[in-house]
């Protein structure tokens, strides 16, 4: 497979790049020349370059089918990219570089990387046959080998943090959508992730439940978590994002501070998109 061995890109870049990489190494995300297509189809991701510094919150916006989900899924290795490099908090995702060649990681190796990245799904994806507490402690116990008592104590702390203290014994179906998503966030946080990726975390929620989930995300951002949030909630993006990134047809069309992006977008396509969603 061509994707198994990929020439390293970073070494060939100018020193400025290396400095940026150093920033990302401490807890950020650095993506270079990422491409991805499905089954020989057109490129769903067509040369993505993106830098997220530690503690930043990036909002990823763009029309349906522009590749936002695919980008997040590549970052935490739910999809394997065709080419390009992803660096998260010092980890070369899914790859190993020995100084000469880049090789693909074995499953056990990339699972360890995956466990360091939190992922929030549109449909929550809580385990329905497990209680809230069991959902949260599952990965700390089975992946990290944390002692049970410690995992439970931490889980209770996290449940309280997302405002659901006392619901540890409930099954997901007994909770509202907003509550389920908050538990999903607690489940991700239980692994102490370096970064948190959220793919439309509020799109499956009734409008009156959106606020409670966004509040939790807002608190997380304030506490210094590095986050990439795909969202259609433009007011949220405007308020909390450090940067807004606009994607279309697998490319990053424009990025900038929320003020600039929403008030004076440079690109015609950004303007068109924003006119439709704002």
């Amino acid at each position, binding site marked *: 497979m061509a994707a198994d061995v990929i020439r390293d890109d970073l070494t060939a870049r100018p020193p400025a790049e290396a400095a940026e990489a150093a920033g990302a190494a401490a807890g950020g995300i650095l993506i270079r020349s990422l491409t991805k297509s499905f089954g020989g189809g057109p490129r769903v991701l067509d040369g993505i370059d993106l830098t997220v510094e530690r503690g930043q919150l990036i909002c990823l916006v763009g029309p349906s089918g522009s590749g936002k989900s695919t980008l997040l899924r590549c970052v935490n290795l739910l999809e394997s990219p065709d080419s390009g490099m992803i660096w998260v908090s010092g980890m070369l995702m899914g790859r190993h570089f020995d100084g000469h060649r880049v090789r693909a990681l074995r499953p056990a190796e990339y699972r360890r990387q995956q466990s360091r990245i939190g992922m929030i799904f549109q449909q929550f*994806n809580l*385990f329905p*046959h497990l209680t809230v507490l069991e959902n949260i402690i599952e990965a700390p116990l089975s992946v990290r080998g944390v002692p049970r008592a410690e995992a439970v104590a931490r889980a209770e702390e996290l449940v309280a943090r997302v405002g659901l203290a006392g619901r540890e014994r409930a099954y997901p179906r007994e909770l509202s959508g907003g509550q389920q998503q908050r538990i999903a966030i607690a489940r991700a946080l239980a*692994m102490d992730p370096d970064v948190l990726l959220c793919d439309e975390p509020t799109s499956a929620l009734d409008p009156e439940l959106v606020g409670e989930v966004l509040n939790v995300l807002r608190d997380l951002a304030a506490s210094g978590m590095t986050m990439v949030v795909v969202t259609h909630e433009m007011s949220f993006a405007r308020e909390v994002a450090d940067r807004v990134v606009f994607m279309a047809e697998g490319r990053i069309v424009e990025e900038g501070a929320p003020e600039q992006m929403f008030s004076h977008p440079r690109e015609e396509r950004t303007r068109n998109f924003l006119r439709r969603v704002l």
Partner: protein
Amino acid sequence: MSATHRPTETPTPTKTPTTPTTPTTPTTTRTSPISPDDFAKAVAAERAAGVIPVRHTGRVVLGALAALATVLATASVARNPSFQWGTVGDYLFSSRIIDGLILTIWLTALSVALSFLIGTVLAVMRLSANPVLQAISWAYTWFFRSVPLLVQLLFWFNIGYLYPRLSFGIPFGPAWFSFETSELISSAAVAVIGLTIHESAYAAEIIRGGILSVDTGQLEAAEALGMHPRRVLGRIVLPQAMRVILPPAGSLLISTLKSTSMVSVIAVTDLLYAAQLIYNQNFLVIPLLMVATLWYLIMTSLLSIAQHFVEKRYARGFARTSGRGPARVPKPDSL
């Protein structure tokens, strides 16, 4: 319902719309639009006396006929002297029958347990990314589902002709141990092997269906947490697949219980063969077949009850089957 009035679908209450043979007001069929006036009257009539339920005459007549037929058939069986109920009672707990019963239970339990173990492996192989494992699993299922159990039992019973000696050692090299096949494999072992191989092909399909029924979002969530695939299968996928697996698995268990009766052809003294051995001596064929039938009935009933409780256990967290579910769609007025 205590309703005595028909909704006023005809403006003239003197006429009876219940007899479709006599055409009533030709302008109003049961579904034609009614005037605002009539609508107001209908509202008042419904408020006063409710709605007359539909009469299911056919259902009542059919039910009565079926009940009658059942009573007659049962009476005829109970009173027919050929069944010799007294003899049935004598043999129901005879030691040879009980021994056969115990062997039947053993055969069923062992072969079903092994079938689901092997079936799980086959299902995982079939769903794996490895094309060789996929093909082997597919071929196994295809072959052993195609060959009738009876044929297989006879085949395994006669395997000694094919491989008179079994040896363990280096393939194509020297053997460390060597046995006469017929010594090593008793009839009972042949029965377990034949049943297991046959049932595991079905178990594989049942388990595969269950695994496929689990939402892929569950797999992604588990993968994103960095969970090991074995753990994902055991902790996340199979418990959820259980809801889909259990009903057909219960059927497979019951059908295996009955299939064990086929081992009588290879002289394994299961419940049926025990009964046959007895009636070959005393010619009380019908009563002894009734003894076997009663035991199969009892065991099947016990298994059905057990299945009910096991299914309930695996419904945890799933509103649809746990009784906390969405309100049932109210049935239209019926008897």
